[in-house]
C-alpha cells in the first residue's frame, strides 16, 4: 500500500512525471523562443510559475457550480498521474502488466480534457463553454484516428492489449516503429498527441487570441496550477506511451535511458516544429482533417499490420 502510494505520488508518478513534464514545457518554450529570435526563459521558469500560482488567491465566479469547479482540477491531475504511473511502472517491470491496461491508460488520458471541459462549463463563462464545446468536437475528431492507430501495435504484438505484452514483443522482434505500418501509425499518433496536448494548430479550445484561454478563463491560483500540472504530466505521459508502443519502451540501463530521453526529445522537437510552422486552424477544419487524412492513414496502417508489413 505504502509502496503503491510512493509510486503514485513520487516516483514514477506525480512528482517525477510532473517535473519531467514541466521541463518539457520549458524545452518547448526555449525552442519556440529560439525559433522566434527570442531568448526564452531559464529552465526553472515553469516550476516558478506553478509555485507562484499556488500562492495566489482562487476566485470563484458568481454563478459557478463550486463543487464541480473545484473537483475537476483534482480529477484531471489524478487521471493523468495515474496514466503516467501505469506506463512507467510497466516499463520498469513488464511483468506487472494486466489485461487491458493499454485501454485503461487510454481512457485515463481522456480524463484531463473531459475534466477541463466540465470545469469550464461549471464556471458559467460563455467563453469557457465555447472552449468546452470546441474541446468536445476536437476530442470526437482525434479519438477516432488515435484508437485506430493504436490497433497497429496491438495487432503487431500478436493482438495483445497489454502494455507489457507489447514491450516484450518488441524486446524480441525489434521496435514496431521499424515497419511501414508502424511508421504510418506513429505519424497519426503524433498528430493526435499534438491535438491532445492542445498545441498549435489544434489549440482552438484554448485559443487565447480568440476566446481568451477558453476553459481556463475563470481558473486562478492553485486550481489553475493543478490544471497546468495535469497538462504537464500529460506532456510526459503521451510521448512516454509513444515510446512504449513504437520504440520498444524504456529499458532501465544507462544506454536504454539515454535512448529513451533522446526519443522523448525527438518527439517533442517534432511537435514543437509543427507548432511553430502552422497557424491555428478552425474547429471545423480540424474535424475534417482528422476524419480524413489521419483516419485514412490509420486504416491503411491497420490493414498493413494485418498483412504483417
Amino acid at each position, binding site marked *: 500500500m505504502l509502496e503503491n502510494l510512493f509510486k503514485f505520488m513520487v516516483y514514477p508518478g506525480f512528482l517525477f512525471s510532473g517535473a519531467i513534464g514541466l521541463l518539457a514545457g520549458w524545452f518547448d518554450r526555449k525552442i519556440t523562443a529560439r525559433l*522566434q529570435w527570442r531568448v526564452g526563459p531559464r529552465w526553472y521558469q515553469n516550476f516558478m510559475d506553478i509555485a507562484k500560482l499556488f500562492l495566489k488567491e482562487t476566485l470563484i465566479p458568481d454563478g459557478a457550480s463550486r463543487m464541480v469547479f473545484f473537483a475537476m482540477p483534482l480529477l484531471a491531475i489524478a487521471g493523468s498521474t495515474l496514466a503516467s504511473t501505469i506506463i512507467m511502472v510497466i516499463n520498469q517491470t513488464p511483468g506487472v502488466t494486466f489485461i487491458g491496461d493499454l485501454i485503461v491508460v487510454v481512457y485515463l488520458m481522456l480524463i484531463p480534457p473531459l475534466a477541463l471541459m466540465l470545469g469550464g462549463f461549471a464556471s458559467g463563462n460563455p467563453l469557457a463553454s465555447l472552449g468546452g464545446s*470546441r474541446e468536445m468536437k476536437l476530442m470526437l475528431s482525434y479519438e477516432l484516428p488515435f484508437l485506430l492507430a493504436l490497433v497497429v501495435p496491438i495487432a503487431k504484438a500478436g493482438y495483445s492489449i497489454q502494455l507489457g505484452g507489447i514491450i516484450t514483443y518488441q524486446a524480441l522482434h525489434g521496435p514496431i516503429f521499424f515497419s511501414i505500418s508502424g511508421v504510418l501509425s506513429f505519424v497519426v499518433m503524433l498528430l493526435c498527441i499534438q491535438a491532445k496536448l492542445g498545441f498549435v*494548430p489544434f489549440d*482552438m479550445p484554448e485559443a*487565447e487570441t480568440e476566446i481568451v484561454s477558453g476553459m481556463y478563463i475563470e481558473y486562478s491560483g492553485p486550481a489553475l496550477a493543478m490544471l497546468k500540472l495535469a497538462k504537464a504530466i500529460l506532456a510526459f505521459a503521451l510521448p512516454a506511451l509513444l515510446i512504449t508502443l513504437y520504440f520498444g519502451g524504456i529499458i532501465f540501463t544507462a544506454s536504454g535511458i539515454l535512448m529513451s530521453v533522446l526519443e522523448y526529445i525527438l518527439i517533442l522537437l517534432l511537435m514543437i516544429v509543427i507548432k511553430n510552422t502552422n*497557424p*491555428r486552424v*478552425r474547429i*471545423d477544419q480540424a474535424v475534417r482533417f482528422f476524419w480524413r487524412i489521419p483516419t485514412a492513414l490509420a486504416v491503411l496502417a491497420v490493414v498493413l499490420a494485418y498483412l504483417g508489413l
Partner: protein
Amino acid sequence: MSHNAHVPIGPYHPLQEEPEFYKLVVDGEKVVDVDVRIGYNHRGIEKLSESKSYDQSIFLVERICGICSSSHPIACCQALEDIGGVEVPERALYIRSICQELERLHSHMLWLGLAGHFIGYNTVFMWAWKYREPICDIMETVTGNRQNYAMHKVGGVRRDIEREHVSYILKRLDEFIKNISILKGAVLDDPVLHERLKGIGILTKEDAIDYAAIGPVARASGVDIDVRRDHPYGVYDRIKWNVVTQEEGDVFAKTVVRILELFESVGIIRQCLDKMPEGPIDSNPKDIPPGEGIGQIEAPRGECFHYIKSDGTNSPVRHKVRAPTYMNFPTFRETVIGETISDATIILAAIDPCYCCTERMLIVDGSDKNIMGAEELIRLSQEKTRLIKDKYGER
C-alpha cells in the same frame, strides 16, 4: 427565439490592448450579429488643439497615434499650409514622402505580425516584428526618433537627411527587402494559411463603396483609390509607383495588398533618395492668416483627414481630425456576420484597426441612457462603494 449567446470582445481588447468593445451575438460558433462600441477613451484632442498654438498642435496630433505619428502631423501641416498658401521647399517634400513611406512599411509589418498572432501563428508575429527593426533604425537615422518623430513643421521639416546617411538607408532597405521576400513566400504560399484566410470576411466591391471604406481595406475589395495618386501631395506625382489592388475582398486579399504595398513603398523611398534635390528644407512661414484649410494624406490605414479653421490668431478655432479606422469600422457588419467566432477576431483585425486614432470621439447616444454630470457620477461611485462594503464587509 433561438439560443443566442453574447460573446464580448473588450471593452479592453485581450490582444490589441486597446479600449473598444465588440459584442458578438453568436449561435453556436456562428456570429449572427455584431455591435461595435467605440469611445471608451475620449481624449479630447480636437478641443485640446484649440488651446494650443499651431506649432504645439502639430506635436499634439503626433500623439493621436503612435503608429501614424508621421501621417497626422503631415496632414495637419498640409491643412495649415493650405490656409496660408505656404510654399514648401522641394527637398522638404521629398523628406516628408520618405517619412510617410517608412511609416507605411513599419505599420504594415506591425499589422502582419499582429495578424499572425491573431491566428495563433506566433512565428510570423515574431519574425515580422524582427524584420521591422531596420525600418525603425532608418527612422531614427532620418528623424532622430524611432517613434513620435517630431519631424514635421509648417513649411517644411526639422531635420535634413545627410548625404552620408543615404548609403546607410539604402543598405538597411536592401536588408529589409531581402527579409520580406522570404516572409512573403512563407506567408503567401502556405496552404494552411490559404485554408485559414481565403474566403472569410469578404467585403464586396459594392459594400466597400457603400460603406465608404478606404485604404488597403477598399483596395483589397477592388476599389482603386489612393490619396497619393488621386489627390497628389508631396512628391507622389513625380515618382513611378503602382496602386496595389486585389479583387477578392477577403482577409487574404487584405494581407496580399499590404505585403505588396511594402515593395511599392521601398521603391518609392529609393526613388525619393535618388531624385532628392539639394536646397533648403524649411520655408519658415511667420503667421497663419484667417481661413479654412484641409490636409489629406494616405496613412497606412487609409485616408487621414485634417480640417483646420483659423481666425488669424495663433491657435485654431476648429480642428477636426478624421482617422482612417473610423471609416472602416462599419464594414464589420458586412464582413463578420455569418462567419465563425474563430474567424471573427482575424476579420476584425483585418482592417488594421487603430483604436487610439479613432478613440478620440465620444458618441453620446442620448436615446436609451441618461447623460450624467460630475455630481451624478460621484453619487454613483459612492453608492457603489457602499454596496461593495455591504457585500464583502470592511476589510
